[in-house]
């Protein structure tokens, strides 16, 4: 390896060092690409500029899934001339058994650099560092082992799920299953982007939203429930016995956003009508409280980050849908199809669906897709008389 004095400074300190990892891999495998990439990265640290440019590499029949990177200074670092990334869709919930994962590593070491990002912010396995002429072969081998490329460009993107019903007592629907079904359903749009812009799904089992769905996805599928919170009164009393009533008041009751929890004779009472399913009391009293029995999902739409219009959070569109049977999942996917059709018509180039809804109007969107109006869609009725009603 060549000298990388600046990068080397990232080898000290207690947090695991990606630099050490790369260097060890380079030492062991002697892959020139790794040396070149370390050299170019060191040069970036020295000059405070980046040196990759994009391009277009795909696999047979696909229009997306490979993020292409050519060095802008390949005369200087010929070993880093190409450094493409393959986005791979992991299992929903990012679950692995070691057999799958070792196999993946072996294939990747055979064709690529051996650098893996676990995981990209949109939920992909990112196999980072492959040359164009290895891509198809690498893909074929991965695909034979059950892996497929993830999304990129103006199409459906890879989804993210929390662990959900796999481990979490709060999960209100089978998000892993819905994730699998939804992304399979939209495989053509993942692989052959043809919309205005990207579209992301994230599946959180409950309103804690451990996948950041509302903030970071166009289609945020959030588990929720329609009936009362399930209270195990013995466990409530046990909680109070252990932690005291002050803790109950300060840390649970006072934090309820709608003051729905009443202290009553050494126990609590929750006014279901006032509860907004924020999860806090359930989080704080995991043994005593659980989401109700009538569970399903809420759909929020339009989350995206800063670009152009400023960060936009998802807005509540469908307050509740059952999500238990295959029929439920099909009905959901039909709704999503209709939503996408509307966006395809109404949207502009490089306009996320949340931007389209904001520009065209929430009411117009609901009308366009045929979704019922619900007071839960807004935080307050309008404060201006600027509308023309159809009377």
């Amino acid at each position, binding site marked *: 390896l060549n000298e990388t004095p600046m990068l080397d400074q990232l080898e000290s300190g207690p947090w695991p060092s990606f630099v050490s990892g790369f260097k060890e891999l380079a030492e062991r495998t002697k892959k020139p690409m790794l040396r070149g990439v370390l050299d170019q990265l060191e040069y970036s640290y020295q000059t405070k500029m980046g040196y990759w440019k994009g391009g277009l590499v795909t696999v047979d029949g696909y229009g997306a899934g490979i993020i292409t990177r050519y060095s802008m200074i390949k005369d200087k670092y010929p070993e880093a001339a190409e450094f493409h990334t393959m986005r791979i869709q992991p299992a929903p919930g990012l679950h692995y058994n070691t057999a799958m994962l070792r196999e993946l590593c072996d294939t990747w070491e055979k064709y690529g650099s051996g650098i893996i990002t676990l995981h990209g912010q949109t939920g992909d396995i990112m196999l980072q560092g492959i040359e164009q002429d290895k891509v198809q072969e690498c893909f074929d081998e991965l695909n034979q082992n059950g892996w497929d490329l993830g999304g990129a460009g103006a199409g459906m993107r890879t989804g993210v799920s929390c662990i959900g019903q796999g481990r979490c007592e709060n999960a209100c629907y089978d998000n892993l299953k819905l994730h699998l079904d939804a992304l*399979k359903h939209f495989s053509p749009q993942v692989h052959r982007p043809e919309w205005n812009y990207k579209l992301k799904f994230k599946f959180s089992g409950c309103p804690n939203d451990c996948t950041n769905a509302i903030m970071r996805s166009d289609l945020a599928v959030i588990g929720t429930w329609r009936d009362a919170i399930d209270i195990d009164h013995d466990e409530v009393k046990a909680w109070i016995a252990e932690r005291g009533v002050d803790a109950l008041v300060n840390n649970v009751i006072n934090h309820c956003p709608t003051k729905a929890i009443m202290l009553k004779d050494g126990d609590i009472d929750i006014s279901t009508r006032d509860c907004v399913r924020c999860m806090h009391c359930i989080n704080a009293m995991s043994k005593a409280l659980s989401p109700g029995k009538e569970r399903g999902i809420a759909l929020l739409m339009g989350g995206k980050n800063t670009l152009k219009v400023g960060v936009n*959070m998802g807005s509540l569109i469908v307050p509740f849908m059952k999500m238990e049977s295959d029929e439920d999942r099909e009905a959901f996917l039909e709704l999503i199809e209709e939503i996408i059709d509307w966006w395809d018509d109404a949207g502009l180039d490089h306009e996320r669906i949340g931007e389209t809804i904001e520009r065209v109007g929430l009411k117009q969107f609901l009308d366009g897709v045929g979704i019922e109006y619900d007071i839960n869609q807004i935080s307050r009725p309008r404060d201006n008389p600027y509308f023309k009603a159809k009377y």
Partner: protein
Amino acid sequence: MSSQERTWKTIESGPHTYEEALHPVVRKNYGKWKYHEIPKPGVLKHVAESGDAIWTVRAGTPRQDTVDKVRLLCDIADKYSDGYLRFTVRNNVEFLTPNGENVEPMIAELESLGFPVGGTGMCVSAVSHTQGWLHCDIPATDASGVVKSMMDTVYNEFKDMQMPNKVRLSTSCCSINCGGQADIAVVVKHTRPPRINHDHLVKTCELPKAVARCPVAAIRPTVVDGKKSLMVDEAKCICCGACFGACPAMEINHPEHSKFAVWVGGKNSNARSKPSTMSLVAHNLPNNPPRWPEVTEVVGRILTAYKAGGRPWERIGEWINRIGWKRFFEETGLQFDDNMIDSYRHARTTFNQSAHIRF
């Protein structure tokens, strides 16, 4: 390799299936979990209605991993968790085992391999981050290096659970912010309009696309040396960098003028308060590789003030909502300035339209 030689016909299979990746105890109790506890930092215990319990050991990773590191993690999983492992949405690795006695030896081995065990409960978990100079085509800084520098300084907070509530960090290497909204986010902020590389422009850009990308209509068609090109109305330009994504010849990145800004109070969950976007609290910090001390120092100040002042369960934004922005700036020693006054589309909704005043 041309497509003719292929013998394999693509299966558009989508996400990998998950059934075979779930631990048998997970499969058995799928959807029937009852409650959880956090016995100690880095360890979760989930109990199912059946009475089964599963322990999770969570550890930090570099996220920019290698096949070698991943194989090490597989070794751990084979040894202690029946060959199953998973990753969290924040790039921590998790090993789920029904055998409580495996927890301590697993922790010891992970630590000895350099994977810090922690990241649970009221801690500072790992950073949501991005590609930076390692891979992206538009970054003004590196991501993994900033993350490593930050996590080194908050290492103990990752391994402990001493914060008022969870702290989520993110970093991003351009203002697009692929890292996301977070309790504390460290994001590149350009401070100069793009310089136009007229030679490249015509070759690499669709002119109308670049014009359309600008949120403030600061880009106009022009003619340079007899060739169609673009110009930027610098008085209008807000240095957002959107044009650079559409057209690499709109050179927004600059070794000195691309700076860092620090943002606080992003919250993605619905617990207690509604999700909230983050607010700008420091900017014009230098892009100072390889260790970015100025940036980590600001993050440290915020964490210190929050740790001292937050009440149990208050996230950073909720803590600030209670004490007010004036006290936030006082207690962190950061400086409020005029650039923090919103000037964008919904600016009016951030004005203090009341006589509620803190002196």
